[in-house]
């Protein structure tokens, strides 16, 4: 018995719509097995993961807070992937944005700086993220170096730079030697939307980013160019579209969004710069982009879903002592199923039995 793929004459739109749901279903089925192997009651674990966080207001806010960076980064990545440019280093661009924006917060600490501080931080972070993303983009366009590897290497570099700054020049003198800057001043902090709550202005910015991306891709020539270059490079060349220019553009935009997400995370929920500000947002956003079918609205939904797995994972750890790494395993398996189900859009699976198979080489 052998599994054989048969190309569909046209892509199946029905499957394109339901495939993320099939993928989530398969992932949850796999998780049930994993929970059983870990010796936990699968039903209770599923409840802790996916239902419990949806039942109280604090967790719901927390899901929105976690979804904010995921959605912002994933929107940028989806532009890259649509244009067939592989930005894998969003994690590094996120960290550089956090570092660059924090620079203003650290320098204005304790001074009577005005309301310009936060906007300046956001702009600087986005600019720094864009510049950092341009390094692999330019290396690819000018020299043909693989953007996958260079953007990834720069993640480690950004991580070490952040580590150096918070252990050295920017360390809080009153911080009992912990590697962290002092808490940011109120003018350098992202305002909360609900008094005493967790939801902050960044979530509104993320929604604006989703809307902007939807307009860019759906209503503008640039968006059309991006999609054509990715889907049909030959046709794009005949159309006179410049693929290299789009690599630069999409990398810059995705770097800017990742950088913005970085400073919003630091000046919002975290409140100061320290190592470990990201539980792998830059990498999880890759899953968000694919689960959301590289579509802005899809990414918004996918971002909320993956945020749920982060919060659910924390609750499952507290309530049932399920290791936190299960969340990462869950996310990895989910990406596999998403990709596998995508295969169904282009191909039909067929089981072939050897005795009925035509002899090899006859054709």
């Amino acid at each position, binding site marked *: 018995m052998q599994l054989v793929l048969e190309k569909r004459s046209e892509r199946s739109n029905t499957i394109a719509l339901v495939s993320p749901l099939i993928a989530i279903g398969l992932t949850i089925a796999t998780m049930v097995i994993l929970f059983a192997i870990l010796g936990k009651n699968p039903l209770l674990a599923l409840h802790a993961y996916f239902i419990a966080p949806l039942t109280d207001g604090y967790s719901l806010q927390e899901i929105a807070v976690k979804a904010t960076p995921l959605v912002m980064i994933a929107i940028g990545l989806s532009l890259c992937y649509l244009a067939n440019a592989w930005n894998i280093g969003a994690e590094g661009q996120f960290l550089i944005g956090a570092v660059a924006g924090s620079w203003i917060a650290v320098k204005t600490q304790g001074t009577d700086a005005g309301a310009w501080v936060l906007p300046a931080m956001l702009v600087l972070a986005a600019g720094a993220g864009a510049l950092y993303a341009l*390094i692999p983009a330019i290396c690819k366009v000018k020299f043909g170096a693989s953007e996958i590897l260079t953007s990834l290497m720069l993640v480690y*570099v950004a991580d070490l730079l952040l580590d150096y700054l918070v*252990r050295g020049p920017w360390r809080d003198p009153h911080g009992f030697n912990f590697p962290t800057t002092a808490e940011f001043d109120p003018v350098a902090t992202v305002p909360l939307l609900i008094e005493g709550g967790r939801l902050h202005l960044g979530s509104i910015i993320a929604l604006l980013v989703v809307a902007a991306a939807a307009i860019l891709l759906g209503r503008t020539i640039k968006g059309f160019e991006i999609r054509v270059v990715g889907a049909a490079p030959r046709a794009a060349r005949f159309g006179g579209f410049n693929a290299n220019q789009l690599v630069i553009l999409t990398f810059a935009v995705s770097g800017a969004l990742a950088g913005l997400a970085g400073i919003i995370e630091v000046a919002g929920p975290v409140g100061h710069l320290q190592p470990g500000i990201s539980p792998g947002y830059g990498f999880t956003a890759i899953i968000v982009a694919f689960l959301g079918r590289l579509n802005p609205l899809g990414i918004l939904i996918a971002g909320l879903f993956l945020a749920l797995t982060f919060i659910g994972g924390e609750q499952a750890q507290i309530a049932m002592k399920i290791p936190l790494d299960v969340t990462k395993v869950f996310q990895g398996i989910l990406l596999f199923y998403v990709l596998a189900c995508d295969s169904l859009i282009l191909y039909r699976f067929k089981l072939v039995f050897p005795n009925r198979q035509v002899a090899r080489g006859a054709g």
Partner: protein
Amino acid sequence: MELVEAIILSVLAASTPLLIAATGELVTERSGVLNLGVEGMMIVGAACGFAGAWLTGSILVGALFGIVAGTLMSLIFALMALGLAVNQVATGLALTILGIGLSGLIGAGFVGERITPAAHLHLPGLSDIPLIGRVLFGEDAFVYFSIALIIGVWWFLYRTRAGLILRACGDNHVSAHALGYPVLRIRTFAVMFGGACAGLAGAYLPLAYTPFFIPGMTAGRGWIALALVVFSSWRPGRLVIGAYLFGAVTILQLHAQGWGVGIPSQFMSALPYLATVIVLVLLSRARTGGSTAPAALGTVFVPDR
């Protein structure tokens, strides 16, 4: 003299996991498959390798655990990228994300435990020759194995018919298929070989490099191994040079800290990653006009029937 000897020994130790992982990936890529999951396979190999050695007290069993773990991971990749014709870049990334999670899960119970690391060879007489004695005859078994491995791969690729067929699959899968070679089956074996090597390379870290396991201990070595394959222009000989150069950069960074050079340690630690970027740029630039990569690298192949 002892310092020189110590440095050479530590360079070889730092190069060995890179060499083993990159050798596996070289074979995979020569068959036309780009598996970006090396980091994921390595890190699972590290966790399983340590688990195996800790449970049985045997380094050899640990190494076998690492190999089996890496191979199983690579089979997931093969099922997806070859069986279901899924984009190889995305599948490789998924493998790495999954691997980091799995390794944390498997290794959680072993953090803080120690084992006796792999013994270094000692040949009375030969190992005592000044300078070259310990360097040539005093390594751990993995170092000798890695050299045998790359020589074996060179011989296989360039001196055997099977190696020729494998390279043909990487350069033109349509022709190879037309000639009647089972392209997908050959690629599956190449991917499995790559997985076995990555798993062993990962296991080397807690079994010989350090005697303990910490989460994330591969620290991007899998990605550097991928860059090394590009560096080598897909040739085994240059791969050896590349791996030892990178091992040397890693050790330079450690020693520079010891010598009290007035540079913050984080900048020195960033050196191998920056070196990778620079090397990739210089090489790609030197190569404009004609790529030496296998022509079918990373492309999806669905045989017509």
